[in-house]
């Protein structure tokens, strides 16, 4: 099974690639919105793609705020 962290970083880079940005070396401490070009529209796409890939959607009941890659990984691991 692919670890959740790997899936999330792959999908983040897939979405960056679709929008014409180069791949980013995401770390657990990376602040997604400050350090990368991911904005709210791109994040909405990341969530849909992650649901299609992992079957999980931690935001089903509403948006939960987070800033770093590590926080996002934990949301998915606990979903």
């Amino acid at each position, binding site marked *: 099974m692919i670890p959740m962290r790997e899936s999330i970083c792959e999908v983040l880079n897939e979405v960056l690639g*679709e*929008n*014409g940005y180069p791949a980013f070396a995401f770390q657990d401490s990376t602040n997604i919105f400050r350090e990368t070009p991911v904005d709210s529209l*791109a994040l*909405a796409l990341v969530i849909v793609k992650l649901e299609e890939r992992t079957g999980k959607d931690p935001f089903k009941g509403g948006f939960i705020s987070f800033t770093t890659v590590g926080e996002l990984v934990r949301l998915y691991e606990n979903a």
Partner: protein
Amino acid sequence: MKMPEPAVVWDAAIPPSPQALPVPAQGPWLLHTGDPLLLNAVLRWGLEKKWNVLLAPPYWPVAQAVEAARRHGATGVLTGTLIDSVWQATPGDTATGALGLREGSIGIFTSGTTGEPKLALHSWNRIRLPGEFAAKRLPAARWLMTYNPTAYAGLQVFFTALATGGAVIYPAPGAEGAAAAVREHGVEAISATPTWWRMLLAALPKEAVVPPLLQASLGGERVDQAVLETIQIRFNPRRLTHIYASTEAGSAIVVSDGRAGFPAAWLEDSDRSVRLRIRDGFLEIASPYRMVGYAGQPAASGGQGDWYRTPDLVSQQGDRVHFIGRSDTVANIGGAKVVLEEVEQSLMQLGWFSDCRVYTRSSPVTGTLLCAEVVPTPDRTVTIPALKEALATRLPRHAQPQLVKIVSSLQLSANGKKLRS
């Protein structure tokens, strides 16, 4: 190898005996069948004997049809095929609401994309009238059925063929079935949604010789100039028509001048049998072909003063009125309004795709996420980054689809329309 499913051919010249149908003289009863020959026998004798019939869509599960029969007070359900039909009484009849099922009405279920399907009641005499007008020009034509045959559009095709002594070809499912029917069954007239036409055009090999059609009709969705011109070139129809009709309003606008939209002179023209006007941006219709009313709801009061507000947004541009989109295909993306049909228009203008579908899904981040499925033309390889880059210069950011999927064909509704969510 799996053998392809053959098409079913119905011919008006071969009437079945009404005695073959084990139904009571008194209605109302519900028909639920996948056999077009049984459906057409019921329509033929129903029209003559003014039966009281409800038409369940063939794709409904049995339980849904039985439940609808109970809810609307039907005495039973006719199922099976013409040569092996089965009558099943429904126990626990209940009276239906304020507008009951009356003698001589035909009940059509709405698609119910936004909630429970409603039962629209039409009179037999009115529902067949538009077909009788078309009949004069199209003697004994062979029609291709592209719609759900129990929906208003499908019934118009049947009644037109019946009035002309023509035939109806029911193709095997999918684009391949349609293309095979066009090549092999001498189809002379086709009525379909623009999406269905584009699917057929993509499925017909370039070198395939297509005999010219007597009649090509489009309806059910917004018709643009590009699809009209493509059909004109590929099928060279003697008459190319786009039709605005709905289950509720009936057949309302018929345009055959080869231009998208309809003449603005038709608005507010009280000499026309179907009257048209624009109010609050919506097309409104007063039509003699309208339904009697919804089952269980108060009947629309009679007379010519009855205006029906369609869900379609229109705008007058010079001497023409154009359809913009439906109120239920306007998405709210982060507070900005996006008309799904207009985004599709921008995608098609790239010239990369044989068709595309723009739809929405809900998102916890932006409320609504704009999505697109695109079908590239055979000669083109499309990548998502290239597509997004091309759209970036054509559409504002909020109107650019975020989730984009490259597919080989679009999934359509039973009526050949694009699914919107």
